[in-house]
Structure formats: C-alpha cells, structure tokens
C-alpha cells in the first residue's frame, strides 16, 4: 500500500506543481498572490470538458484550445482587474483578486450548475498492473505531460530571449524597463503561461477524478499555493519541488490519518513553513529595502 499511496501522491503532486507554477510566475514579478488562480484552473477544466464532451474534440486539440482560451482569460483578468491597481496599496489588488475569484466561481455555477460533471467515460479507464501497483492511463498521462511541460518551461525561461526577459523582470521591473523590456507584455505573458498550465492541470484532474465542478478551484488553489510556498515562491524549480512534496504529504496524511484531516495539514504546513523559513525550500532570501 505504501508504494501505491506514493504513486497516487506523486500524481496529484504533479498537478499541484503545474498550478503552483502559475502562482510563482506571477508572484515572482509582481510580488502578488493571484487569489483567483485556483478559479482559473477550474475554468480551464470546464472549457476542456465542454470541448471534449459537447464538441467532441479529441484530446490533444482540446488541451491546446483550452490552454489558449484560458491563457486569454488570464490575460484579460490581469488587464482589467489587476493592472489598474498596481500603484495602489497592496491590499487593494488582493481584494480585487478575491472579487475575481468569487465572480469566476459564481459564473461557472451559473453557466454549468452546481453539480458535478463527469468526463465521458472513454478516457483514462485503462489500467496497468505493475507488480501490484495499479496505474491508470490517465495517471501516466499526468506524470508524463506535467514533466514535459515543466521541462519545457524551464528551457523556455533559461534558454530563450523572452525567458530571459521574464527573469529580468522578476528581478526588478524598473531595471527591466530601463533595458528596454516591455514589462507590461511580460507580465501578461506570465499570466498567460500560468493560466495555460492551470488549464492543462484542470483537464487532467477532471479526467483523473472524473469530476468537474465550480468550487474545485478553492481547495486546489490553496493547496497549490501552499506547495508553492513550501518549495519557495518565486522560484520555478521550487514550485515543482513543492508541488511534488506537498502532494505526497497530503496523500500520506489521508492514508495514515484520515482524508478530512488533509486540509488541516495543508494549513499547518503553510503556517509552519511561513514561520520557520518563509522563503521556502529553494527560495532566495529577500532583502527588504526601506
């Protein structure tokens, strides 16, 4: 059972990692926690469900379309609800993000009802038995695709010009501007990438649990945020590490204690990390300039 739980934990950990990346990309640049990110993940999942169920799109095009659509939504939100507030007191965009979060989940409830929607049954139901360990097709997909995406992102950020611009902006917006980088577009890009990853995660989760519902963003968002903090918010490898680690911790809590206790663990981990090492495992120490 231990190995099985470990496998399950790593699977969900990958999902958390993908969502955590969204948080980290935005936080790295704006030092702002996008409260609504969990709901963007949920919207991505619904869009994917719609494409696959209603329009009968095959899997890969559905992933791509949903990712693009969600990226656009993420960019619009940034443009409309966050950018105008960038110069205000920090509390203001936070509250705005809360408003966006409420808006998105209520919108989903209005459009798709409050019930749970299953994915068409043909997906991911094939299972492989490897010496007692059960792997479903979808689990394999999650592991492989997430890994590929993370490698892709890492290469993008380290080996391309835009990626370098992104990193420069996260070090200092003003300096990046001085170097001629259009920081507004970079910020939009950060939101876009984060949202796209979240959408992919959302669809995979929808297939894995066979359930898509309007409030799925709430807990997943908090869990992923905790994962990001655990790994070191503002650091991409940190988000990945944090995601995996947290997924395993959460799963083992459910396995050896009980599942309702999992949310207690989430917040406990968060509080402990923030009290002991707020920058997380791989995070850099921040110097507070006065």
């Amino acid at each position, binding site marked *: 059972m231990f190995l099985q739980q470990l496998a399950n934990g790593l699977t969900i950990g990958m999902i958390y990692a993908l969502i955590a990346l969204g948080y980290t990309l935005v936080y790295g640049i704006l030092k702002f926690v996008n409260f609504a990110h969990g709901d963007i993940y949920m919207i991505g999942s619904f869009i994917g469900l719609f494409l696959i169920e209603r329009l009968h799109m095959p899997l890969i095009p559905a992933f791509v379309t949903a990712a693009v659509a969600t990226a656009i939504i993420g960019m619009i939100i940034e443009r409309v609800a966050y950018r105008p507030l960038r110069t205000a007191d920090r509390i203001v965009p936070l509250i705005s993000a809360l408003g966006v979060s409420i808006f998105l989940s209520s919108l989903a409830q209005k459009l798709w009802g409050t019930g749970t929607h299953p994915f068409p049954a043909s997906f991911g139901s094939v299972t492989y038995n490897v010496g007692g360990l059960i792997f479903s097709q979808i689990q394999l997909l999650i592991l492989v695709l997430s890994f590929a995406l993370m490698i892709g992102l890492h290469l993008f950020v380290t080996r391309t010009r835009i990626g370098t611009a992104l990193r420069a902006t996260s070090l200092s917006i003003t300096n990046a501007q001085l170097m001629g980088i259009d920081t507004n577009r970079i910020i939009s890009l950060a939101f876009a990438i984060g949202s796209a990853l979240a959408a992919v995660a959302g669809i995979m989760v929808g297939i894995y649990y066979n359930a898509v519902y309007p*409030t799925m963003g709430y807990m997943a968002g908090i869990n992923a945020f905790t994962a990001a903090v655990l790994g070191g918010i503002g650091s991409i490898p940190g988000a990945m590490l944090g995601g995996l680690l947290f997924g395993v911790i959460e799963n083992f809590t459910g396995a050896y204690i009980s599942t309702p206790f999992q*949310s207690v663990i989430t917040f406990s981990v968060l509080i402990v990390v923030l009290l002991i090492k707020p920058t997380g495992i791989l995070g850099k120490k921040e110097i507070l300039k006065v």
Partner: protein
Amino acid sequence: MNRKLGWIPVLLALLMVLMTACGGKEENSSSGGTIQIGLAAPISGTQAQYGEALRNGAELAARQINEAGDIDGKTVKIVVEDDKGDSNEAVNVANKFANNKDILALVGHFNSSATLAAAPVYNRNRIVHISPASSAPGVTDAGDYTYRVITTDAFQAKFLADWSKELGYQKVALIYEQSDFGLGLLDVYQSAATAHGIEIVAAESYLPGAKEFSTILTKIKEKRPDAVFIGGFYNEAALIASQAKKLDLRTDYIGVDSLYSRALLELGGESVENFKLIGFFYPGGNNEQATKFRDAYVEAYGKEPDTYAAYAYDAASILIEAIRQNGADREKIKAYLDTLKDFPGATGSLTFDENGDVQTVPQKLIVKNGAFALYEG
C-alpha cells in the same frame, strides 16, 4: 461629505419603518382564492440539485390537486423560499414563513442543520412543517410541529445492518460522509452490525463534496472487505465505485435511500452494477402510488424523479390532504397529522408516531443491468 452622509442612517431607519408599514398591509390582506403551502429548500448553493427535486415533487402534488379542482374550488400554491442550504438563511426563511399568515404549513427543510435551526421558529409560531429529507436523529425532538416523511438514519442503518447479516457479510468497510448525515449512519450501522457479529474492518470519512477517494480506497483494499457501506449521497457513491474499479478493488456495495437516483447510474455506469440499497421510493414495484408518481413526474418534467422528489411529493400531498379534510387552519392541519395512519404515499404507507417521525417499511433494491430493481432473495 460626512454632513450629508449623516442623514443616511436616519433615512434608512425611516425607510424601514415605511416599508414595513406598507409591506405589513400587503401581508395582512387575505389572498382569497389560493391556499398557500410553503417550501423551504436549497434552491441555490451547493445543494441546489436536491432543492430542485424537492420543488418539482411538491409542485407536482399541487398541480395534480388543482387539476382535480378539489379544495372548495381554491387553488393550491407552493410558495418557494431558498434557504441556500445554510442554517442562518434557514432561520430567515422560517421567520418569513411563520409570520406570513397566508402560509398554512410548509415542506422543509433539506439539510438536517437547516431543519434544526428553523424548527424552533416554526414551533414557537405554531406552524407545521414536514421535512422531506432531514434524517438526523435530533429532528425527532425538534418540536411538536416538526414532522418528517423520511425515516431517521438510525432506522435505515439498523435495517441495513440486519440485511447485511442476511447477505452473509462478515467483513464490512464503511465509507461515510463527514457530516451529520454520514456520522449518524456510521454510529448506528457500526453498533448494529457488530451486534450481529459482523467485523467492521475500516471506517473512513470524506468531506461532503469530495471527489477523490483513491487514498481511502487504497486503504480499504488492503482489508479485503466483503462489502463496503457507503454512508453518503449518490454523487460520491458513484465516484467511489468508479474509482474503486480503477484500483481493481472488488467488493459489494450497500447503502441507504440517499443512493437512489438516476445520477448514480449515470455517473457510475458499469461500476455501480450490483449495488444493493434500501429504498422507500421504487416505482414499478409493489407500490402503485410510486409508479403513478413517477409517470406523472416524467410527463411533467421530462426526467425521472429521485427519492427526494418523491419525499417532497408525499409531504405536500399529506398537507394538501390535511387541508382538504380539516380545513385551511394551522392548528387543524396539525390535528390531522397527529392522526395520520397508513397514508398512501409514493414512498410507502405512511404513519406518524408521537414524535412526528414517519413509520414505514423500506424495500430492498439492487442495481441490475444499469437500472434499479427489486432485490429478489
């Protein structure tokens, strides 16, 4: 700025006084030709799907009586208020209904916590309410004016435990919802089953609305139970069964009437085949009322009714019958309910005991070939 704004509270207070003066007059005017029965249910919020079922069931009962033109030529109207599945809101709704002299009685609420929160208001104001879904044991003592057409969790769990013994289960695992509903079922089933010599090998809880059960199921798989008792609703039950299948967990499943719904079959597909449950609503079986209700429901709404629609239908029907026999008066309705015996409902032959709890006999059901059927032998 503040000078002008200073008048806001004064104006607000004035507004409220005026509003109530006018509103009050409206409330007091008699509504002449309609008989109003209230329905307090979660129309919005996370339980909205159940609220819809309740509403459909109750409105169907009203519609049927109106078509038959039976109560002194007056039409029956179901007045719906949304309690959002929230106990605070339930109190608001209760106050509204209780203080509206035109509401003679009502069907409500859905959640046990909503019913428990609202009951004191109804009891204080001496208006009858029949809950179509609150099965927590606490409702028994909630008051003289509190009735229900759903049996208590204790009753159902015990019945299920007896049936488990009959089916020869020796090791049973429990998966239950961490809520008043699930915990109530857990308690009784556990003690009743253990008294029968059945070993409870696991008792895992999940939060209402949970979607992920592989952690729990992996644990349970280790214990190799003969059966898994699902103490929760059909959504989660379907997910549990389908996820168990993915993990290659083979076992029997048993549950109470909260599993009875088309959604169980749709969400679960093949994985819910051979699910055994006890139900009070089963059309196409021995209960003629149930079949008639189902046919009427399908004709009216274009889909199959679930247990909760049936309960609401029965609750409304009982109230309508009370008004028909005893007249449009709150106390007289209560008098009728106190003497209710063997009322032919879609969920069985109903009798109220001295606490307002219903006495009826459940049926044993099984899922065969993607549909519910009576369990034979």
